[in-house]
């Protein structure tokens, strides 16, 4: 098995007193059942009297809703209810998704089922509930909605023009949010710089395509007036809070359970209109109602992301120093800001992150976030990072090219040096500690850069066009309340863990951060086993249940290891202290003379085994009468952790891509991809590698294949898995991953996030590799996805 010491980087001191699992590539033992077909995804659950809901969704981008004829559908076999927006609004309040710290942000009230108007193709309008899914779908064909098409705002480029209709007249215009930042002397620097390079970058709308679609079962028990929601979701406590607020319930009335989640990537961290509609229907019908999106519904109603057009420029001097960046970002988010995280975050992140790895002192950014009649966009894996990184790194390569400097040397010269931390980035972001220089050195060796360049130049003589592209990146992880809490969103940045020793000496860990496949439960098992001092097969993890786990934020912003892991460590170490205290009371010995190791209490001086944990448990639970008066055997401990030292803990890394472009067909072949990632302490190298690889492939999807294509009237043209391309195995390269470990000082564990950096860096690296391959033709492509057609256009072949 790999230890971090076997990998590139430093060897960290142990964080527990008998560290056997943290830092090792321990397999995810709890995931074996998934390989045996024994998982429990939402659609696997069948409850007594469970009904099924399907939705009549807007067939056009913008429409006035007229009379809704439900008579025929209501009489179809098995139909239990047909409900429209007006009926639903009697029990479910509308919402407006804004954040207080995004000054001036606005959005319109949104309902669970549309009332009066539907504002995107796919917005739910009418719910049909029946005994079976097939019956509900049969009845859906007989829903007759009178509607009148309204002019749609499709292009973001014209969304703010005076002649463009305003989607929500009460808002006054189609502007959701705008932000400007101007630091240093940008105009002067650009006017006098030796080298200025500029480009316009395009980013296609894409979406997460979780293999398991969004789904839930809502169950309302009229006896105790209690709502239970089984949900494929990343943030159960957040959903509990939202159901409370929209339906006028209290936390004690709402139980949210997340079992196995078939992929999430941010798609399942938002509250969708059909989530609320399903809950409302369960309350109306007083029976369980299941909603499972079909794939077309997924494409038209799951959040999209990344529709940006950015004009960017960079200034540098002859010596090779980057002096300034300037960007103008236009992004469109659909007709509503998404609840409750809002849709302005992505653009805001772009402003915060452009130029982030570098030490330039001049930066200007302008951002416009506009409304349009397409599916709402919101946070999807990487949130702004892939965009900021591709823009920054694309500009960096253009500047290096103009300066005739090697792109890797240019980066080495300009990154914020490893000994400069803590410091502030030019956009105001606070950087605790990063390792750009070490990461660049590592990747250079890993890919054997000089020989790769040699191979590239030799092949060029034979008419084979290969390219090498780099992307240096920073990524925000371990968020403090500065992300959402300060803006008024009731999304916890803290998380809690409860660690309990059961009578036989086995350990249960209850935690608010759940598992969607990343291996979160696996690393909590490792941390708890080491910190309590038991074998790993004696630790059980319980997540995803608001009745059971401590209150927490769940999975987002790469916080599972850094925030959740720290809570587990603190609680598990506190439990070990309590086990030792109890053992001391049983043995009548001072605690200082005892240590806990591998399920036993030992004599610290001699190492002699004194008591097994099972004996400590037996006395602690069943023979408390034998303990000293006033002694409390607390074999269950809860600890909470919030990262408060910085707004975020930034990580860093670098990726490199090696591609071959066929100038006759525009076809791009990915030959190899490398990544060096510094996520602080690596708890499980194998799982971090797999997070990095999976995230890179999602990033590759964005740069090469994925785009939600709309026609001029705002209709989605590729709402199926056959038409919307995601990466498949034979197109993907092998991906080599190495680690640098620079732990954060903001926690004992020292772990930072690792789940999104791959997606952040891959689009920039592949874009730059393609442009490097195209360099002999003196052309560039900066419009993602970089399709064969775009390459051939750049080559003036079509």
């Amino acid at each position, binding site marked *: 098995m790999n230890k971090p010491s076997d990998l590139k980087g430093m060897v960290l001191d142990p964080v527990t007193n008998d560290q*056997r*699992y943290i830092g090792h590539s*321990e*397999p*995810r*033992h709890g*995931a*074996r059942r*998934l*390989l*045996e*077909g*024994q*998982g429990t*995804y939402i*659609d*696997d659950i*069948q409850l007594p009297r469970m009904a099924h809901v399907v939705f009549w969704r807007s067939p056009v981008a913008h429409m006035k809703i007229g009379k809704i004829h439900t008579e025929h559908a209501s009489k179809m*076999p098995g139909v239990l209810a047909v409900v429209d927006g007006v009926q639903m609004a009697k029990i479910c309040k509308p919402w407006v998704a804004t954040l207080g710290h995004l000054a001036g942000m606005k959005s319109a009230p949104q309902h669970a089922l549309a009332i009066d108007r539907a504002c995107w193709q796919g917005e739910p309008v009418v719910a049909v509930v029946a005994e079976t899914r*097939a019956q509900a779908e049969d009845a859906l064909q007989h829903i007759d909605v009178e509607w009148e098409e309204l002019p749609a705002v499709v292009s973001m480029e014209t969304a703010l023009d005076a002649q463009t209709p305003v989607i929500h007249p009460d808002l006054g215009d189609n502007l959701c949010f705008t932000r400007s930042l101007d630091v240093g002397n940008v105009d002067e620097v650009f006017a006098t710089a030796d080298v200025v390079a500029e480009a316009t970058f395009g980013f296609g709308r894409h979406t*997460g*395509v*979780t*293999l*398991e*679609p969004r789904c839930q079962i809502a169950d309302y028990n009229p006896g105790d007036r209690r709502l239970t929601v089984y949900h494929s979701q990343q943030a159960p406590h957040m959903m509990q809070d939202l159901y409370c607020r929209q339906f006028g319930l209290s936390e004690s009335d709402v139980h949210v359970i997340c079992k*196995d989640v*078939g*992929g*999430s*990537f941010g798609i399942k961290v938002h509250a969708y209109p059909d989530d609320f509609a399903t809950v409302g229907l369960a309350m109306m019908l007083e029976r369980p109602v299941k909603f499972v999106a*079909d*794939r077309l519904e997924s494409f038209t109603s799951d959040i999209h992301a990344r529709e940006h057009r950015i004009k960017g420029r960079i200034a540098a001097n002859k010596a090779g120093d980057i002096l300034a960046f300037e960007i103008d970002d236009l992004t469109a988010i659909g007709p509503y800001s998404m609840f409750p995280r809002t849709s302005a975050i992505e653009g805001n992140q772009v402003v915060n992150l452009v130029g982030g790895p570098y030490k330039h002192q001049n930066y200007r950014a302008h951002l416009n976030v506009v409304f349009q009649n397409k599916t709402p966009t919101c946070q999807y894996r990487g949130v702004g990072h892939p965009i900021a990184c591709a823009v920054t790194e694309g500009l960096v390569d253009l500047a290096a090219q103009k300066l005739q400097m090697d792109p890797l040397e240019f980066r080495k010269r300009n990154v914020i040096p490893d000994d400069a931390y803590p410091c502030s980035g030019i956009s105001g972001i606070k950087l605790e500690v990063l390792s750009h220089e070490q990461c660049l050195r590592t990747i250079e060796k890993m890919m054997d850069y000089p020989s790769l360049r040699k191979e590239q130049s030799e092949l060029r003589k034979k008419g084979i066009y290969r390219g090498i592209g780099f992307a240096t990146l920073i990524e925000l992880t371990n968020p403090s309340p500065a992300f959402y809490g300060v803006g008024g969103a009731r999304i916890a940045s803290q998380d809690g863990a409860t660690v309990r020793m059961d009578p036989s000496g086995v350990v249960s860990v209850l935690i608010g951060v759940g598992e*969607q*496949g*990343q*291996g979160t439960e696996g690393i909590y098992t490792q941390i708890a086993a080491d910190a309590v001092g038991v*074998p*790993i*097969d004696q630790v059980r993890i319980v997540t995803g249940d608001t009745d059971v786990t401590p209150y927490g934020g769940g999975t987002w912003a790469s916080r599972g290891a850094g925030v959740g892991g720290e809570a587990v460590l603190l609680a598990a170490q506190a439990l070990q202290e309590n086990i030792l205290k109890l053992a001391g009371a049983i043995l009548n010995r001072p605690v200082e003379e005892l240590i806990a190791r591998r399920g036993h209490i030992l004599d610290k001086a001699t190492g002699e085994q004194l008591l097994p944990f099972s004996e400590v448990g037996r006395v602690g639970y069943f023979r408390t009468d034998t303990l000293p008066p006033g002694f409390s055997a607390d074999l269950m401990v809860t600890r909470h952790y919030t990262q408060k030292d910085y707004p975020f803990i930034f990580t860093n890394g670098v990726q490199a891509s090696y591609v071959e472009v066929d100038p006759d067909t525009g076809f791009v072949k990915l030959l190899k991809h490398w990544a060096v990632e510094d996520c602080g302490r690596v708890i499980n190298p*194998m*799982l971090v590698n*797999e997070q990095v*690889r*999976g995230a*890179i*492939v*999602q990033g590759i999807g964005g740069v090469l294949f994925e785009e939600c294509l709309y026609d001029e009237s705002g209709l989605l043209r590729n709402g*199926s*898995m*056959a038409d919307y391309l*995601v*990466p*498949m*195995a*034979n*197109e*993907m390269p*092998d*991906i080599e991953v190495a680690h640098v470990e620079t732990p954060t000082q903001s926690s004992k564990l020292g772990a930072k996030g690792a789940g999104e950096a791959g997606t952040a860096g891959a689009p920039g690296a592949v874009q730059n590799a393609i442009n490097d391959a195209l360099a002999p033709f003196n052309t560039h492509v900066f419009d993602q996805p970089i399709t064969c057609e775009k390459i051939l256009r750049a080559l003036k072949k079509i």
Partner: protein
Amino acid sequence: MTVKKKISMTVNGQLVSAEIEPRRHLVDFLREDLHLKGPHLGCEQGACGACTVKVDGQIIRGCLFLAVQADGSVVETVEGLTKSGALADLQESFMRHNAMQCGFCSSGMLLAAAELIEKQPKASREQVREWISGNYCRCTGYHSIVDAIVDVLDARAKGQKIKPVLANA
């Protein structure tokens, strides 16, 4: 209402008879009527491969195959193939390489991999990539799945088994 049709088939070694609507897909029949939740529904249009099951020894898309088409057939799912040990090497290898994250694609991926090992025991890494390109995985990026399958091919070539993954006590 459509007239129901009587069918019978052998599912994971058990003879099963049922009366079903002709429009019912095999994967729905397995999941809803027989409560075999191993095959999953990702797209219901034959693109993703999550619903892969075996019919008469060959893998098929359970969402493109009507249950009535399987009348008289031998059907095997991940549950049955786990119990028989047919997938054991692949499952251990997937564990070892963490070749699953959310697990939603895993049953289909394992069945596809098992057929490759049977039909192309000398498959190269590239051929493995090509073979599993009918199965979506949105989490892993495929590298670890390819590693896991290649390890099984190598072990089989040497006449070896993949060692079970045990928790390090």
